[in-house]
């Protein structure tokens, strides 16, 4: 995208594989949390 005369090529998800695995484990932890969800 353009911003003040510069072109920015944006890429998302660089660490998505790590974070997907992390989220999977957090979801598996969810039934065992002590506080209300």
């Amino acid at each position, binding site marked *: *995208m353009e*911003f*003040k*005369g*510069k*072109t*920015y*090529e*944006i890429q*998302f998800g*660089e*660490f998505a594989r*790590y*974070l997907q*695995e*992390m*989220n*999977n*484990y*957090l979801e*598996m*932890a969810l*039934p*065992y*949390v*002590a506080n209300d969800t």
Partner: protein
Amino acid sequence: MAKHISHESRIQNLDYALSWTFLSEKEKNYAYYMSKASWAGALVTLHQISYESPLIWCIFQAYFADKNFDELEASAMQGVEGLTADDWSKFIAYVGGFYGNLSNYHSFGHMKFIPEVSPAKFWAILGSHPKAGQQDSLIQYVLTNFKSHVEQEVFAYDGPYKQINYPHEGGITAYFSRNMTPDDHSAVSEFLLSAEAIAKGLDILNTRAFKKSEN
């Protein structure tokens, strides 16, 4: 911050076997899955600290994959010419420091630390792994494919490698490419804080920038 990790630092397993028995099933499950989540997310840190950290991590993971610590030590002591018990301790101290900081930079102070053994001995220890000669082994794969990409960076201690900082302030960072000027940093910061960037879901705290051309 110390240039080397003291080899007098103790490395020991956390003894939680007894404490674990006092937890309920619910608490055990919670602790287990949170631990797994923490480690999965922690690997992002390697990429955020230095160019070489992910590859060093892979090399150490391959070296210790079989959890045969005594065998590794014996193989190194027998296979590396001139290696002393003190050298081995210093090698292990570096590895411990690397895992403890999840990079080759101190997590407090962001100064670099390097192995206290010579480059020749450091790589020879890794190459002394009992499976290093096996064609299909993980350790041979990482040493063949990764070593050449990081062997200078592991030991480089002069500027800019000594500390994490903006390149124009004499350091290195994994967040900005080394060809970026102070003006480039200002332009990127202004962009990332703009309404347009925020609308795209960008956050200045977790976005890396690499300069491909002047514009």
